[in-house]
């Protein structure tokens, strides 16, 4: 009989673990193979066949461990976050995701239904990005050692443009874009976690961005240079952190126009109430993109065709002044520095 919770045996390498892999993991991952040996072989590893790629292409490897409290939040779960996060890390490098791994550490007592939902969400999110999950690992630990599930996803990708896209490639004159509204993930999570009844349907924006960004990677200037000069996903630390990193690494300044940054009204209202800066709040399905000036319309046209890019906007310009700094200008000309957040956003009171 199928057990209703995870037990230590589910990670012990025996029959029970084999059953878990077969009945839950293999069943819920549709795309499991990137070469002649895939996940369903349950061999010591899997293979990836490389074909039709330029010999100048580079492989990109990234890894991310995901912990989030609670594991379920509006209106998805840690499974989507783990797959989208790694797909996006590859995407931000200008790399097509080739394959993912999935390592799970789960405490005994974790509800089996929740486990299956998370695995299914991983499978669905990977399918959305057309990337197979080809190998994995499952470990169980005593409930005193861990209070929720941990997922690790490693992703292998291959660059599609001549060079990988970096977060350090901004030059003065470039335009800065975001692919959609800012702060949705962090605020929806906080509202959910703290039980705030904001009376809104704000949900996490967690999404794999590969298909949104792919067409931009092919864009070239008439001189043959890539239109995208830099790219980053504004996850923890939000837009403030991502932009500061881009400015510092590029040795340039960034001037943002506050009025042009897309925020959902619920995010603005919640931030105003709680004393948070929406620029410091996490996003899990957005990209910040630096592009060559003059290509704003073309890039926006492409982004807006995809549901994840419908609210895309040009929000600022790269400057030679204020090197390494991000400056925000509001509708009446007031300017302030956008700082690197000190840590997790903490609401202020007085």
């Amino acid at each position: 009989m199928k057990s209703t919770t995870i037990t230590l045996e589910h990670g012990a390498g025996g029959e029970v673990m084999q059953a878990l892999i077969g009945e839950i993991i293999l069943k819920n991952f549709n795309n499991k193979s990137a070469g002649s040996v895939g996940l369903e072989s349950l061999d010591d590893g899997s293979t990836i066949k490389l074909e039709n790629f330029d010999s100048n292409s580079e492989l990109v490897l990234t890894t991310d461990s995901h912990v989030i409290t609670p594991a379920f939040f509006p209106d998805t779960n840690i499974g989507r976050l783990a797959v989208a996060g790694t797909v996006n890390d590859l995407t931000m490098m200008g790399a097509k995701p080739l394959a993912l791994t999935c390592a799970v550490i789960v405490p005994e007592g974790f509800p089996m239904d929740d486990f299956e939902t998370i695995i299914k969400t991983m499978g669905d999110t990977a399918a959305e990005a057309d990337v197979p999950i080809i190998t994995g690992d499952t470990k169980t630990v005593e409930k005193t050692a861990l209070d929720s599930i941990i997922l690790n996803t490693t992703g292998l990708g291959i660059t599609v443009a001549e060079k990988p896209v970096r977060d350090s490639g901004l030059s003065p004159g470039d335009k800065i874009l975001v692919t959609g509204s800012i702060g949705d993930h962090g605020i929806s999570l906080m509202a959910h976690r703290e039980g705030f009844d904001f009376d809104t349907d704000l949900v996490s924006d967690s999404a794999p961005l590969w298909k949104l960004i792919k067409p931009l990677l092919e864009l070239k200037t008439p001189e043959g240079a890539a239109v995208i000069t830099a790219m980053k996903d504004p996850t923890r630390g939000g837009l403030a952190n991502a932009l500061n990193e881009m400015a510092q690494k590029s040795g340039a300044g960034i001037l943002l126009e506050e009025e042009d940054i897309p925020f959902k009204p619920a995010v603005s209202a919640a931030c105003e109430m709680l004393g948070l800066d929406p620029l410091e709040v996490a996003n899990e399905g957005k990209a910040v993109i630096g592009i060559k000036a003059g290509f704003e319309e073309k890039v926006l046209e492409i982004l807006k065709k995809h549901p994840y890019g419908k609210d895309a906007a040009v929000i600022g310009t790269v400057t030679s002044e204020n090197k390494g700094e991000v400056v925000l200008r509001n509708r009446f000309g007031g300017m302030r520095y956008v700082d690197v957040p000190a840590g997790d956003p903490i609401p202020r009171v007085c």
Partner: protein
Amino acid sequence: MTEKTTLLKPSPETGTLIEMAPEKIPSKQGIPELEKKLLERIGASARKLRIMHVCGTHERTIAKYGLRSVLPEEIEVISGPGCPVCVTPEADIDIAIALAKSRASVVTFGDMMRVPGSTGSLLDAKAEGADVKMVYSIDDAVALAEKKPEQEVVFFGIGFETTVPANAATLLRGVPENFSLLVSQKRTPPAIGLLAKDTEVDAFIAPGHVATIIGTKPFEPLAYQGFPVVVSGFEAYDVLLGISLLLTQLGEGAARVDNGYPRVVKPEGNLIALKMMEEVFETADSEWRGIGNIERSGLVLKKEFEEQDAAKRHEDFYAKALEEIRKKAKGRDKKRCICAAILTGKANPSRCPSFGKGCTPKTPAGPCMVSQEGMCYNWFKYARAGGSGHA
């Protein structure tokens, strides 16, 4: 006072629903071009002027909207002692930490968490395993106590008259037996009196939140001393209107208290809130971090509420811990920074020997560097890279 409320949760700041009046919500709902018009008016009558505000939220508005970068050069806006977490004495933070480390769950507001006591902050203590929790209101702390009746829960109550009424109302409603209040609350009028005697500014912007509770009258001593005063709200246009009204008073050669926030502030204040405060608290002398003792500027629980007074409830522990802390902390504030002079507008942060050296936003030594409202914090932020701020 609460008629325009649209959101659902009381603000921890005021304990009333006034915070959620629609005009407070997103700045984009502001009247277009209003700021530009006010700036033109200010520009037309600008004169050499040093304005002090005494409210953390005003500093936040000023920083958030970059107001210093758009005001005429002659107008300087400085931040007085208005950040309640900044003026909370080290010893109170130390006691809270000691309680959290040994016998109770200590619960407080987010911005109190990062403020260092003599050996670290509540956040540091939490990382070391102390039982510290962050809440958005005293109600959340009471709910915590109700959920775990076997656990002592201490709410670290900080702030001015804006947070006091919510605490008073909660105690009057009744709290679980395992709940107590560690009171570190302050009254603004005595500090205002001190500022009137000993400060180097020309005019004051008075805090709209505090005035919502205590009314505009307590600010009159400043006007009697010859300072123009405007009670202001917290949108960019509120602060700009405040500055414009101060310039009008100066132009007329007048010194009075103008209410620049009449959509919220009534001259008499919130009488219900004041009555509740009086029922629960009585005044006492109080230590302000970086400033020193100010007579009758603190609040303590009345005898009837002894059971809910963490200082009494944990008396044995409290007295001993306090003694040790005082021994350790003796004279340290003064050695480390010149906060008192900065908070009263007599010195700029760059005059302080610790500024930018031992004392930075990541390693704050004194209250002015502690939070985003602090003058040193903002000075540090704006001065670096030759920034646009000229505070």
